[in-house]
């Protein structure tokens, strides 16, 4: 774990001056409590992750998928974490840290509502007042999560600027923070933002791969050939990769290995981005119909860090798009961008159709309903399973309950042979809402 502010060319602290002191204070707290485990912080964090969060979580052998792909496929079950996604690992860590720092209030942004929900839960658990900024559009798309946040006692403040999604919510939360920075901690929801957030969030999420690595050895007697995780900001991604990053092989890696050709001596890491409906962009409208910043973006500065971005030729940030709200972000964590540049992580993507089909496939064949975000990783597995070796671990970053509305709508638009007929829902319920 490093306290460097940068990862190669990426990272840094590009924030308004009023936030800098808070970021320095946070850096100090991160070093003391997280890295040096002062006052037993990490013990308390781990204890709460276990008792409140439900860790450790299983690495499950996926029998149907393994048969389908003739490969040992294992699922890292972050969907079983309290709240239904990996997000609580980070939220609990940060809210607890805020408590150690003597902060009195928590703010956070949320897109899919998963980070907001996790933060609201952690704040309720630790008795901290909490306010969540959420784009108006996302509030509409993710009503169940809004309800959960309110139920957990958090304020949910609609953000009406721009398209009303995650990007705008982050900007608005930063504005709140600039005003309240002395008493308030901003719980950033992914490995993005100014240092030390990317490293700190990774460290809180690293419990995923800490467990998975041990479990892999326990179950198969060896390390996996490939590890897959979806990537929005990249927190489940970095969490799933962290303890495998050093398990690199010697040979240089090349894309498009076919079965048998793949190196046996390293763990390949795949960050699966949202290819949306297309990888091309509409420069005129400032819209990218995808969220594949690692695959198609270029370097720039957003929300406090230098990283890969979806931007137009002038440097204006584009509106990203994905069927999954949680991947719908124009940036990505700087460390992940760096690992991709280094060749340690392969940046890949699948489109909305593939993710949706994978959602239905995993649900039907394994009895595990993944988040649409997660489904992207399984879309990649479907398309490229013969290039991934004999032992593949996929992170199930979250469960799909939250995606009901979207999946219904998007499935209806398509002709997916794996999708169930859901007419019973319509006929019995008439045209009522969910």
């Amino acid at each position, binding site marked *: 774990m490093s306290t460097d502010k940068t990862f190669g060319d990426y990272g840094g602290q590009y924030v308004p001056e009023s936030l800098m002191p808070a970021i320095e204070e946070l850096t100090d707290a991160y070093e003391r409590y997280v890295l040096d485990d002062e006052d037993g912080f990490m013990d308390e964090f781990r204890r709460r992750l276990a008792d409140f969060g439900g860790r450790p979580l299983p690495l499950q052998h996926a029998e149907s998928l393994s048969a389908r792909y003739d490969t040992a496929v294992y699922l890292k079950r972050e969907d079983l974490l309290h709240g239904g996604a990996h997000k609580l690992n980070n939220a609990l860590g940060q809210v607890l840290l805020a408590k150690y720092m003597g902060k009195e209030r928590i703010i956070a942004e949320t897109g899919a509502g998963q980070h907001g929900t996790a933060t609201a839960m952690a704040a309720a658990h630790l008795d901290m007042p909490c306010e969540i900024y959420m784009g108006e559009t996302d509030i509409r798309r993710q009503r169940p999560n809004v309800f959960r946040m309110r139920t957990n006692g958090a304020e949910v403040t609609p953000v009406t600027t721009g398209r009303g999604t995650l990007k705008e919510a982050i900007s608005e939360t930063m504005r709140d923070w600039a*005003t309240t920075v002395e008493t308030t901690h901003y719980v950033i929801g992914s490995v993005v933002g100014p240092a030390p957030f990317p490293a700190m969030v990774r460290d809180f999420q690293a419990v995923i791969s800490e467990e998975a690595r041990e479990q892999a050895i326990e179950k198969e007697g060896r390390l996996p050939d490939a590890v897959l995780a979806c990537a929005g900001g990249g927190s489940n991604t970095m969490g799933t990769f962290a303890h495998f990053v050093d398990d690199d092989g010697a040979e240089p890696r090349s894309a498009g290995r076919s079965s048998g050709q793949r190196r046996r001596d390293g763990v390949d890491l795949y960050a699966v981005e949202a290819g949306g409906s297309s990888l091309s962009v509409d420069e005129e409208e400032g819209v990218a119909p995808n969220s594949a910043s690692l695959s198609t973006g270029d370097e720039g500065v957003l929300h406090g860090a230098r990283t890969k971005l979806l931007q137009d*030729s002038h*440097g204006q940030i*584009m509106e990203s798009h994905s069927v999954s709200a949680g991947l719908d972000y124009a940036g990505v964590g700087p460390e992940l961008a760096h690992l991709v540049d280094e060749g340690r992580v392969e940046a890949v993507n699948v489109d909305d159709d593939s993710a949706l089909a994978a959602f239905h496939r995993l649900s039907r064949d394994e009895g595990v309903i993944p988040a649409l975000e997660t489904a992207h990783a399984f879309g990649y597995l479907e398309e490229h399973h013969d290039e991934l070796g004999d032992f593949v671990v996929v992170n199930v970053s979250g469960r799909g309950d939250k995606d009901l509305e979207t999946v219904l709508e998007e499935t209806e638009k398509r002709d997916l042979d794996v999708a169930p007929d859901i007419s019973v829902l319509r006929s019995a319920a008439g045209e009522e809402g969910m």
Partner: protein
Amino acid sequence: MALERVFADEPAFVPYVAAGDPSDEASIEYVEALERGGADVVELGLPFSEPIAEGSTIQGAVARALEAGMTPQRYFEFVEELDVDVPLVCMTYYNLVYQYEHPETGESEAVASEATSGETASRGPRAFVERAAEAGIEGFVVVDLPAEEAGPLRAACDDFGCDLVFVIAPTTKGERLGSMREQVSGYVYVQARLGVTGAREDVSDRTEQSLARVADWDVPKAVGFGIKTGAHAERIIAAGADGVIVGSALVDIIAEGHEDGADTVAVADRLEAKARELKEGALTGARRAGAETR
């Protein structure tokens, strides 16, 4: 280095508007009106899609300007078209600086998905400052560029004889003050309160404390964030500032005019009047300060 001159004789009035808000034509009129009203320096915003330090007023200005087609290239042409004598400072966010490609020394514009990145002579801070200086910009405020990350831009400013202004927040303390003091030139932007831009009904008590923290710096101190009236300006100057920076109170006038469909001349007149009120307030403040301290 040159910007310091405008604070030398009397307190400076430093208005902010977003270039191109709500249209290029109107915006040019407005800047000129501000000069007529007594502006000593104009902070001219180059709009960025994610204005994380702005309150809703300036967010609105930025959105209108972007909607009307403002781009960095267009911005410099805009500056060249302006007929003002007062120095201009470009206020923006770092990604636009970082991504900037000089239209002559750089390659032709490439769409984002094809563009190669990284700084070169023809791209990034150096290219940006070069083009800005050509257009007549004398200084920069880059809202999300703290001193720690400012090296490349500072170097470019040095090469082209421009000033780099930093913001001191009420929370800025200790070591960080030192590194900013080293790099700052033109003036220091003293942020009167925590939070984002936006006109307020009162003057923050923290202004004096912030001013005290930079009292012995050898650059002029301009105070901004929340200043709305001549009385505010007077109080700020009386408290020891060398200038007042006013953005949202002016943008409010532009926004109102835009919404009401008022004609450009009428809005320009209102801006000029508001500028005069603020400049007068600053001058009164200076007299009060002189009376009190001398």
